[in-house]
């Protein structure tokens, strides 16, 4: 199936016709509703909160934030940002309760530091991996977005972004950008390996109110297993260890350093750094 991200920029792709179709389709509404409730579960909000909805579109996800029951800690007040005027127009007609902004999240998040208790984003941030003009880059857009988001969340706040990466490169580009901005980040994958698999980027600011690390977000949830890629990476690093003085890696490193300084260095060969046979 073709990806809308590959066809047109978001503000042009979601024109009047496409926005209306998107909002009316019961299939899309169902998927959006289930993803929003999953995101709310991950945010674990206990009292009425101030939430930012990134790429709110026609307010399908925002609507659910306003509808959270009092017993479940709601209803929440939200602000939505979207780049498509047509989508926002549909949101206006549907009379959603949140405040709407016509803005490009790749240009940053224009709020005071510590404004929001939480942020939510449903099927939006993969659009940041496309640069529509030559003066912006996907990396730059992602950086501005995550830095702005990080600042606008209060300490202990959380953000959950459901997204559809095109491939593993995009997936690691997005999560890498979030980590660089200072977030504690983890990815939750629902129904992995199936056609309907869904990825949630879970972000915490200043620990996210958790006693441990990011894996604490899914504590107490059923059917979730934790795969810690960090532990594997550190183990591999430890097994190799730093090069010891005198071994081949150390010698090659030194030679490279000296060559960079402009010194004359003997060429390396397969004999470099080998032990000599004990001579009689």
């Amino acid at each position: 199936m073709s990806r809308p991200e590959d066809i047109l920029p978001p503000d042009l792709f979601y024109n009047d016709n496409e926005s209306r179709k998107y909002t009316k389709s019961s299939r899309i509404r169902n998927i959006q509703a289930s993803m929003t409730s999953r995101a709310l579960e991950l945010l674990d909000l206990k009292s009425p909160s101030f939430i930012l909805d990134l790429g709110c579109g026609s307010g399908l996800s925002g609507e659910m934030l306003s509808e959270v029951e009092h017993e479940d800690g709601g209803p929440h007040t939200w602000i939505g940002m979207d780049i498509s005027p047509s989508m926002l127009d549909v949101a206006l007609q549907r009379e959603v309760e949140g405040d709407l902004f016509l803005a490009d999240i790749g240009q940053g998040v224009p709020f005071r530091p510590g404004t929001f208790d939480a942020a939510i984003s449903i099927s939006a941030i993969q659009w940041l991996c496309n640069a529509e003009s030559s003066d912006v880059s996907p990396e730059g857009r992602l950086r501005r977005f995550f830095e702005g988001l990080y600042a606008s969340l209060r300490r202990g706040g959380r953000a959950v972004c459901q997204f559809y990466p095109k491939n593993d490169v995009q997936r690691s580009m997005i999560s890498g950008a979030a980590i660089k901005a200072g977030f504690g980040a983890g990815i939750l994958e629902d129904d992995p390996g199936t056609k309907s698999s869904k990825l949630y980027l879970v972000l915490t600011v200043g620990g996210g109110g958790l006693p441990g690390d990011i894996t604490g977000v899914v504590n107490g949830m059923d059917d979730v297993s934790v795969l810690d890629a960090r532990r594997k990476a550190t183990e591999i690093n430890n097994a190799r260890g730093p090069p010891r003085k005198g071994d081949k890696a150390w010698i090659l490193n030194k030679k490279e350093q000296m060559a960079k300084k402009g010194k004359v260095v003997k060429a390396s060969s397969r004999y470099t750094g080998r032990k000599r046979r004990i001579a009689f």
Partner: protein
Amino acid sequence: MKVITANFVTCAVKECKTSPASFPLHFNDAELEQQELDFQPEFIRNILPRIDWEALRTISNELGFPSLPESKPEEEALNNEQTLKDLHRLLLETHVTEGKLTCGNCGHSYMIKEGIANFLLPSHLV
């Protein structure tokens, strides 16, 4: 745009991030509308510590409301239902439907139409 949002939004231009004059944004030619919303005392109590009271006073002046008290309502005042209701009315039920938001630092104006503020920036300002 609700008044509560105006208390949090800043200028999106990069150079303005470091300037104190970029907050709050100033309203021009604002048209107001009142929209009923369920009263939620918990939300007001949650958000009140984060409200910039000085900015709120400036904004409500610009919108032509009677002036607010000098200082933010603190502890006991938060148990007074009338205070919370007034705040709810101002912060959540008052909407700016048309008008302009202007940055005090760079002078950039953000248009508000049908309650939606346009924060798209031309690429040279990003």
